[in-house]
């Protein structure tokens, strides 16, 4: 179904084409009931204060396809709890009917057919329209727009403008407050310049100057406390006081290169956060205290349990699009509501608060999927995006190959697009084994669609894209796999970094997520079936090294070369491990056994 047909079906085509930019024209009517979309964006405001939230858009300015995971395992006491429910289990838990637009938005089920039926998601022009509508319908016609970060990275134009295109887009969108993660993969001066150019406020209580940087008087928001950025901000919403504390990704200098930001040190800093919350409660006495977080949902859930005084944690990082919030009872007997609002521009969260008597009396939360074919474009944003892309358009729109399969990344172990990357690196680098990072961003491609440079950059666009081909022993390989696996499956969320497992090509292995660190990975074998010997050397290729710059070409050049020579891509199976001890876990479905 194309946009025209879709809008005709909804009976709103005439309005949308004549008044693009007027978001309210997207309201369902007539035949929309057939698609179940008639009430999608239709909800009366509740209470007296409206917050809007998104996370992890990864610089996706245009509408995309994005397949949700079929593997998102929760282990230990997280097993079977949000966000670790996939497919039908998630629908069952949240009461979403199968086959509805919501079911498509929140799960991988029947992805290809539903993506063809309902079209692309997200895009800043459509998001802008929806945000305008949600603002206009908010109390006093206002709303506070919050962004959990991973906004300045993820596309070719974001990389080439060093995040500036996204700062401009966020200014147009009217983002009021943000925090960050991939924002910190540019150089320190570039980050400062972007924060300066951003019309909203960039907040982070957990980014501080290192002792060395403080000693040498490196500029900071607060020289005495060492906060590199403003830790929190206070806003009045129609006479109601709301405080928003920022929590940047705590493990940025570990998961990403510290060499770009040597003066800053991160960490969860739960004790300092509690001290800050106490100080704010004592001195500012807000009616609502919000943590705008890039911790990842498991870390947010634990943080909610071990702190007190935080009313809401609006989170991101692990890309969990959760249709319902999780309410956590904390040590002091209070409650903290934790949400996570998905990725790639696919969702907008609407949090309506009833504030009064010095507290949050009640709330309503909705995570709205952004079905781009249903929402009209905001013309100003559309023009801005066109202008941003214009200088790079011929490069971005080059068709490298055509896909015969659904290509995607998201999932704990591997995705079909990861397989393409690994296959390409092995072919071009003449290697035996490929390692590719388990990022959670990266858009999806439908069968028959071209794999353009745009789509390839969606999967690879980072500031440390250099590849390597080098000899590595079986022992080293095991060490890497074990290390990354512990980042994913350590039973204590505070020791998790929030990425998925490193993707492998040319080899496979058996994985027991429940085992201890050092004992999860076994039976590492080459694709030939030959066991990988700890003492033997193998020719391994990879990219995204954090310690130092790798010597080879950027990964997108390597994979583009492979795609141009292949012309068509078909992926029937991916190198994902045989799993132990996950039978009955509702965080896994449709996994090859």
């Amino acid at each position: 179904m194309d946009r025209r047909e879709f809008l005709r079906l909804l009976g709103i085509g005439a309005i949308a084409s004549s008044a693009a930019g007027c978001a309210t024209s997207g309201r369902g009517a007539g035949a929309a009931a057939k698609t179940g979309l008639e009430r999608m964006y239709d909800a009366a405001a509740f209470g007296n204060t409206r917050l809007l939230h998104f996370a992890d858009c990864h610089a996706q300015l245009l509408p995309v396809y994005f397949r949700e995971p079929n593997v998102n395992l929760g282990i230990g006491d997280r097993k079977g709890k949000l966000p670790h429910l996939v497919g039908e289990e998630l629908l069952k838990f949240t009461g979403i009917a199968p086959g509805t637009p919501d079911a498509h938005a929140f799960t991988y089920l029947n992805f290809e057919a539903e993506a063809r039926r309902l079209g692309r998601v997200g895009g800043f022009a459509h998001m802008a329209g929806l945000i305008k509508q949600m603002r206009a319908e908010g109390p006093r016609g206002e709303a506070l727009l919050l962004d959990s970060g991973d906004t300045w990275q993820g596309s070719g134009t974001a990389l080439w403008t060093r995040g500036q295109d996204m700062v401009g887009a966020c200014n147009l969108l009217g983002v009021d407050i943000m925090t960050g993660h991939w924002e910190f993969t540019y150089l320190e001066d570039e980050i400062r310049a972007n924060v300066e150019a951003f019309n909203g406020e960039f907040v982070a209580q957990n980014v501080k100057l290192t002792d060395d940087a403080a000693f040498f008087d490196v500029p900071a928001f607060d020289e005495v406390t060492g906060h590199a950025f403003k830790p929190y901000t206070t806003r009045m919403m129609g006479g109601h006081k709301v405080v928003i504390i920022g929590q940047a990704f705590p493990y940025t200098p570990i998961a990403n290169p510290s060499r770009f930001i040597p003066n800053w040190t991160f960490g969860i800093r739960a004790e300092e956060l509690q001290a800050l919350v106490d100080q704010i409660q004592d001195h500012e006495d807000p009616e609502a205290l919000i943590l705008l977080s890039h911790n990842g949902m498991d870390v947010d859930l634990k943080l909610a349990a071990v702190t007190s005084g935080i009313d809401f944690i609006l989170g991101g990082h692990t890309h969990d699009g959760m249709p319902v919030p999780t309410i956590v009872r904390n040590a002091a007997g209070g409650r903290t509501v934790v949400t996570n609002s998905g990725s790639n521009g696919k969702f907008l969260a609407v949090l309506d608060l009833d504030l009064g008597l010095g507290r949050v009396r009640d709330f309503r939360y909705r995570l709205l999927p952004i079905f781009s074919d249903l929402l009209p474009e905001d013309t100003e944003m559309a023009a801005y995006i066109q202008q941003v892309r214009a200088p790079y358009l011929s490069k971005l729109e080059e068709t490298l190959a055509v896909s015969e399969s659904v290509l995607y990344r998201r999932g704990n172990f591997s995705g079909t697009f990861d397989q393409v990357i690994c296959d390409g690196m092995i072919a071009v680098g003449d290697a035996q084994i490929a390692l590719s990072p388990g990022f959670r961003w990266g858009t999806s491609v439908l069968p028959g669609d071209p794999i353009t440079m745009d789509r390839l950059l969606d999967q690879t666009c980072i500031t440390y894209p250099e590849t390597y081909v080098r000899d590595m022993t079986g022992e080293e390989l095991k060490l890497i796999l074990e290390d990354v696996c512990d980042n994913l499956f350590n039973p204590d969320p505070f020791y998790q970094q929030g990425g998925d497992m490193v993707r492998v090509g040319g080899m496979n292995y058996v994985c027991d997520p429940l085992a201890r660190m050092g004992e999860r990975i076994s039976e590492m074998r080459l694709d030939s079936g030959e066991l990988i010997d700890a003492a033997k050397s193998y020719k391994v290729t990879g990219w995204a090294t954090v310690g130092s710059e790798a010597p080879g070409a950027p990964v997108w050049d390597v994979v583009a070369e492979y795609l141009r020579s292949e012309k068509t891509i078909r992926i029937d199976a991916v190198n994902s491990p045989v799993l132990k001890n996950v039978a009955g876990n509702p965080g896994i479905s449709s996994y090859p056994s």
Partner: protein
Amino acid sequence: MKLTRRMFIQGAAAVTALMAAPRALLAWPEKAFKAGSSDEVMQALFGSADVTESGSVVLNAPDIAENGRVVPISVSSSLDGVENISVIVVENPSPLAASFDLGPGASAAVSTRIKMGKTSNVIAVVKADGKLYSAQKEVKVTIGGCGG
């Protein structure tokens, strides 16, 4: 609070006197620093491994080290009569990372940077009024990368 260069220079004059103290006067616990296990460290330092975990000892250390070669930690205690604060990294080849002798009236709060070879429990031991108290925390040392 962070130590800035300005603050350092202001404080430098006061510290000079302390730095002049002859090393011979400070009993350097060579045997403890060379010990190969936590138990040996405890025996060499305190003549006992009989230590009680205590909420009155506060160890601040990162959950995951940003750089295993320089891991910032701090230890403080609300106990009276603190004579010594020591830091043990269980998995290091030489587990004793630091040992502070405190004079009477000194505030029981120290901070330093320790070196860690791999993921390990870090134990802060406080000797107060002749008894041993501790707090511990696992600090993970990772090869990094592959985060999303």
